[in-house]
């Protein structure tokens, strides 16, 4: 019913790992992905992420394949754009227009970059409970009141999703073809119609939510206790070390191996 990006409890290595270690891992992957456009390195990175999730969290590619399929048109579009914009030798011609080889490679590289980062985020949010994220942020110095808001967002995303779904269904049961239409434009009209009541509803609700948080001492200045604890164990250090080793290997690959598919390498 609600998004599949949500936390799913489990007992795998990644589930048990400290959120801080996982955040470090994500940052490393992000840094790697964003600092190179080389297709071979990015393919390797994606493969490592996919493999890592499969082994450490028993998340098979099947569970996020659907989301990836949604990105593919975007990647193709990007590739085409880059192929048209970039100069250099052509890899092929499309209706008489030369497609730049380096452009295609760049487009594919950006696509792989999105894949690697997307899969990584997915693995994180599925294996980490929102309150652990909040706690981890708090432990690294973010004031609790702000850290809590991350966990709060995970609570209200499904709520909004639910509400949108109910409103659209309510339109459909009153004979609206728009709200169940597969035609994006017509469906768009239904969504616009729905937006205002949803916004009005959330405005009213947010004041009540603020009140109910207040009633349970959200803004009390006194010391707060933490029921859950986050301990950075040896296994977490090992996870971070492992990720760093992989990063080093990928960097080495980038420096040592010549970039593939380049003219006259």
């Amino acid at each position, binding site marked *: *019913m*609600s998004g599949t990006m*949500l*936390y799913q*409890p489990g007992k795998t290595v990644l589930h048990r790992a400290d959120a801080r270690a996982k955040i470090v891992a994500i940052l490393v992957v992000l840094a790697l992905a964003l600092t190179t456009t080389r297709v071979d390195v990015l393919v390797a990175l994606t493969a490592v992420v996919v493999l890592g999730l499969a082994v450490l969290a028993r998340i098979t590619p099947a569970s996020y394949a659907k989301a990836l399929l949604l990105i593919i048109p975007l990647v193709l579009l990007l590739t085409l754009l880059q192929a048209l914009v970039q100069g250099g030798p052509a890899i092929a011609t499309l209706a008489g227009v030369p497609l730049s080889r380096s452009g295609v490679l760049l487009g594919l590289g950006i696509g792989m970059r999105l894949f690697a980062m997307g899969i990584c985020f997915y693995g994180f949010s599925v294996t980490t*409970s*929102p*309150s652990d994220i909040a706690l981890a942020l708090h432990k690294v110095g973010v004031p609790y009141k702000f850290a809590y808001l991350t*966990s*709060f967002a*995970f*609570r209200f995303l*499904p*709520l909004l999703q*639910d509400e949108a779904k109910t409103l659209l269904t309510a339109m459909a049961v009153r004979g609206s073809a728009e709200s169940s239409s597969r035609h994006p434009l017509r469906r768009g009209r239904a969504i616009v119609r729905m937006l205002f009541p949803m916004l009005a509803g959330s405005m009213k*609700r947010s004041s*009540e*939510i603020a*009140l*109910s*948080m*207040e*009633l*349970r*001492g*959200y*803004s*009390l200045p*006194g*010391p*707060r*206790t*933490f*029921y*859950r604890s986050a301990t950075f164990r040896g296994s977490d250090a090992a996870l971070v070390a492992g990720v760093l080793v992989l990063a080093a290997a990928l960097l080495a690959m980038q420096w040592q191996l010549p970039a593939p598919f380049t003219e006259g390498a």
Partner: protein
Amino acid sequence: MSTPALAVSGLSVRYEGAERRALDEVAFEVAPGQIVGILGPTGAGKSTLLQCLSGVIPRHEDGAAMRGDIALFSRPLTDFAGLSDITETIGLVLQDPEVQLVNTVVREELVWGMENRGVPVPEIERRLSRAAELFGIGDLLDRFTHALSGGEKQRVVVASVFCLSPRIMLLDEPTSELDPAGTEGVMNAIRVLADEGVTVLVVEHKVEELAVYADRLIAMRQGRIEATGTPREVLMGTAAPDRPQVLDIALRLRELGHWESELPLSVPAAVTAWEAMTNTPHSDRNRT
């Protein structure tokens, strides 16, 4: 009477732009450890009253002008520093459970308020298991709050306020989405708490439950208190917006000259009364 848990006098509230007062010169006292049911049709001012008692009006609500005196255990409400400070003494459960579930998992929902208060972890554990038992939510603890049914949400919300261990609990229609068994469960839990000294004010349309569980009732209409007293006193009167069916039946039979016994508030009481009334000729016949 010992120090009242709640003392209210001359309480009036008018919302901005409203034609009449939402509360009009309301005054009453509640002894500690009592369950007080608040009855009245929509617009009677029940929710407004609970909001005043918990300091939400005027502290959180700008559009309401309030005057009058409220004291919790003899301490004027104006003496408290802020809303969070008041809620050390008073726990308020709002009508809509959806806005009161602010965490993703039930266990965290229950724990969250206690963490904010700085309750030590062993004590958190203790209250958590008590809440689970009292409100029958032990098997919900690891569920997602957004995936609960309406009735489950209501039980979790009441339980999470219970976890703050307030001396006074104010509940605004806490059982509206519960079936009869669920309603009885919550009412039983409230009774247990009251017997331990917690004072409970509950706004509720379900008179048949209130008739049995409440110590006193307050009937409101259009911002005024129309009647207060024991459930029997209030429900017999004209101020009650609704009556338990058995009481209705007995009152109508009494009007017809057929009900001499005490007026019943529950089915068993009605059966006993009826047997007393009809068995008399029955046993007479046996003797002859």
